[in-house]
C-alpha cells in the first residue's frame, strides 16, 4: 500500500500565551507548515484537530480553528485521548490518506491551558484517573506517576537523582530550542532543591502546563512526490490502550499500552528498537521517560535509571532522546504535544535541527502517552 508522507511542519512558541486565543495559536503553526510545504492552502482536503476540549471556554473548538485557518468548507474533526490527542489526530489523518479518502490533510495540535488556574488544572488532570474509585481521594496527575516512580525505585533501585538527570538533560537541549517554554539549563543541585509536589517528585520532575500549537501536513506518496522535496515517511503507526484505572494494571513499573504500541509500530516499519537514532518520548514526569526507555526496548526493564545516568540518551549515546527539550522544557500544551514530537523528528530526519541535530539520523520515533498510559501512540519515521 502507498506510504504516507509528511510534506510540511510548523511549530509555534510554547508558553504562557496570554497574548493569543487558541485559534491564533493554531494559525501560527499552520502558517509555518504551509510555508514549509510550499503549497497553496486550497490543496488541503481536510484537517484534523488534536486538542482536549475541557480546557477551553470555546465550545466545539474545531469550528473556530477551521474558520480562522480559512479552510471552510473543507471537513474538519477533533480527536481526543488526553495528552495523546495530537498523535491520535495524526493517526486519523494517516488513516484517511491510507483509505484513499483524502490526499492532503493538515493536522493541527492546539491547546490553551492557562484559561484555567493551576488547582483547576490539577483537579481536571487528576480526573484522568478513574473518578468513581480513585479521584475521591484527591489524586492528582503527578501523584499517579509518583506512585509508578516509588514502585520503580522499590523493584529496581532506581534513584530520584537518576530521575532528575532526565530533567537536567532535557533542560540542556531545551536551552537550544527557541519554541520551548524554558530555555535555560538547570543543575542537579537546583533540581534537588526544588519544592515537593508528590513524593518523590519535586517541581523539576514535572512538566509545566503551557499554551501552544504545532502542525504537520500529510500527503499520499504520489501527491507528495509532485509537491515536495522535503519528505519524511510515516512508516510505523502503533496505537494501544490499557485500563483507565491503575488498579487494574498488571504492574506499576511500565505502561503496557506503550509496549504494545511499540511492538506494532516496529513490526509495521520493519525495524527494531536498536535501529532508532532519535526519539521523542512522553516525559510528562521524569520517571515517564525512564519507563519509556524500557517500554520501547531501548534498554532492559529496570535499567532505565542506569541508562540516563550513563548518558546513553544524549546526542552521541545509543539513542538521542528528547533533544528538543521534551515536555519538561518545552512545556506541555496537551493536545499539541504529539504533533510537536512529530515536527521535531521530521526536522531531525531532514537534518534541519541546527545545534541539536543528531548526526546522520535516518530513523526516528515518537512515543506520545495519554493520561497515565491509558493510551499510547508510537510512530516510526524514516528519512528515505
Amino acid at each position, binding site marked *: 500500500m502507498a506510504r504516507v508522507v509528511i510534506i510540511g511542519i510548523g511549530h509555534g512558541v510554547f508558553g504562557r500565551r496570554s497574548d493569543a486565543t487558541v485559534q491564533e495559536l493554531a494559525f501560527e503553526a499552520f502558517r509555518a507548515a504551509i510555508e514549509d510545504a510550499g503549497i497553496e492552502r486550497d490543496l488541503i482536503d481536510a484537517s484534523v484537530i488534536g486538542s482536549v476540549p475541557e480546557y477551553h471556554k470555546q465550545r466545539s473548538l474545531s469550528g473556530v480553528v477551521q474558520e480562522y485557518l480559512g479552510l471552510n468548507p473543507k471537513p474538519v474533526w477533533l480527536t481526543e485521548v488526553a495528552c495523546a490527542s495530537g498523535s491520535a489526530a495524526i493517526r486519523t489523518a494517516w488513516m484517511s490518506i491510507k483509505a484513499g479518502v483524502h490526499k492532503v490533510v493538515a493536522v493541527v495540535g492546539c491547546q490553551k491551558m492557562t484559561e484555567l488556574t493551576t488547582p483547576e488544572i*490539577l483537579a481536571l488532570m487528576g480526573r484522568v484517573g478513574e473518578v468513581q474509585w480513585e*479521584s475521591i481521594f*484527591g489524586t492528582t496527575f503527578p501523584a499517579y506517576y509518583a506512585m509508578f516512580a*516509588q514502585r520503580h525505585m*522499590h523493584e529496581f533501585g532506581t534513584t530520584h537523582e537518576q530521575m532528575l538527570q532526565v530533567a537536567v538533560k532535557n533542560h540542556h537541549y531545551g536551552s537550544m530550542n527557541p519554541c520551548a517554554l524554558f530555555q535555560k539549563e538547570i543543575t542537579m543541585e537546583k533540581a534537588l532543591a526544588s519544592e515537593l509536589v*508528590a513524593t518523590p517528585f519535586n517541581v523539576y520532575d514535572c512538566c509545566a502546563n503551557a499554551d501552544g500549537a504545532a502542525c504537520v501536513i500529510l500527503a499520499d506518496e504520489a501527491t507528495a512526490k509532485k509537491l515536495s522535496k522535503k519528505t519524511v515517511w510515516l512508516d510505523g503507526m502503533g496505537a494501544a490502550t490499557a485500563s483507565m484505572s491503575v488498579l487494574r494494571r498488571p504492574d506499576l513499573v511500565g505502561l503496557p499500552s506503550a509496549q504494545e504500541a511499540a511492538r506494532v509500530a516496529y513490526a509495521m516499519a520493519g525495524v527494531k528498537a536498536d535501529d532508532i537514532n532519535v526519539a521523542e518520548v512522553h516525559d510528562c514526569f521524569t520517571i515517564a521517560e525512564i519507563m519509556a526507555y524500557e517500554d520501547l526496548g531501548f534498554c532492559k526493564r529496570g535499567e532505565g535509571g542506569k541508562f540516563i545516568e550513563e548518558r546513553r540518551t544524549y546526542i552521541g549515546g545509543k539513542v538521542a532522546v528528547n533533544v528538543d527539550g521534551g515536555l519538561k522544557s518545552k512545556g506541555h500544551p496537551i493536545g499539541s504535544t504529539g504533533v510537536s514530537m512529530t515536527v521535531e523528528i521530521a526536522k531531525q530526519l531532514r537534518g534541519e535541527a541546527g545545534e541539536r541535530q543528531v548526526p546522520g539520523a535516518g530513523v526516528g520515533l515518537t512515543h506520545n502517552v495519554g493520561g497515565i498510559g491509558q493510551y499510547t501512540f508510537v510512530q516510526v519515521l524514516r528519512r528515505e
Partner: protein
Amino acid sequence: MFKWFGKVNFSPYTKVSDFAQHLKDGRLMGSRCKKCGATSFPPRADCGKCLSGDFEFVEISGKAVLHTYTKIVAAPTGFEDVVPYTVGVVDLKEGGRLLAWIGESIAEKEIKIGMDLQVVPRIFEELEEIKVYYSLEKPGTTWGRASEGGAA
C-alpha cells in the same frame, strides 16, 4: 446512596450504589458475577469476563499489602483543606487493588512498600452530611477505633 462515597463525589449514580450503604455499616464489599463467579474489586455490575449483568456483593476482609504510595502536597480543588495527605495502592488479599488514604494509625516514617495493612471503613465525622470512605491502617485496627481520630 453512592453520593455518600468520598469527600468529593463525581459519580453519584451507579449500579453498585449499595456499596456506600454497606461501607457506612462497616462492611467492605467486592462483587461476584452470579453467572460465571468472577470476582472484582472495585465492584462492578457488569461482568468483564462473561458480560452478564447479574451480580452480587461479597464482603472482603480488607487485609492488604501496600503496593505503592505517594504523599501529595499540591492538592486539586476540593482537597486543599486536607493537604498534605498520603495515598496508597494496596493489593487486596482476596484479589484486586484499592486506592485510599493512609490513615493516622501509621506514622509517615513507618510507611514501606510491602507492609501489611487493613482497609477500614470510615465516616467523615466533622461533616454534617453523610460522607463515607475507607483508609489504610495498621492490621487489627477496627472501624470504631479508627473513626475516633476523625478524617485522615
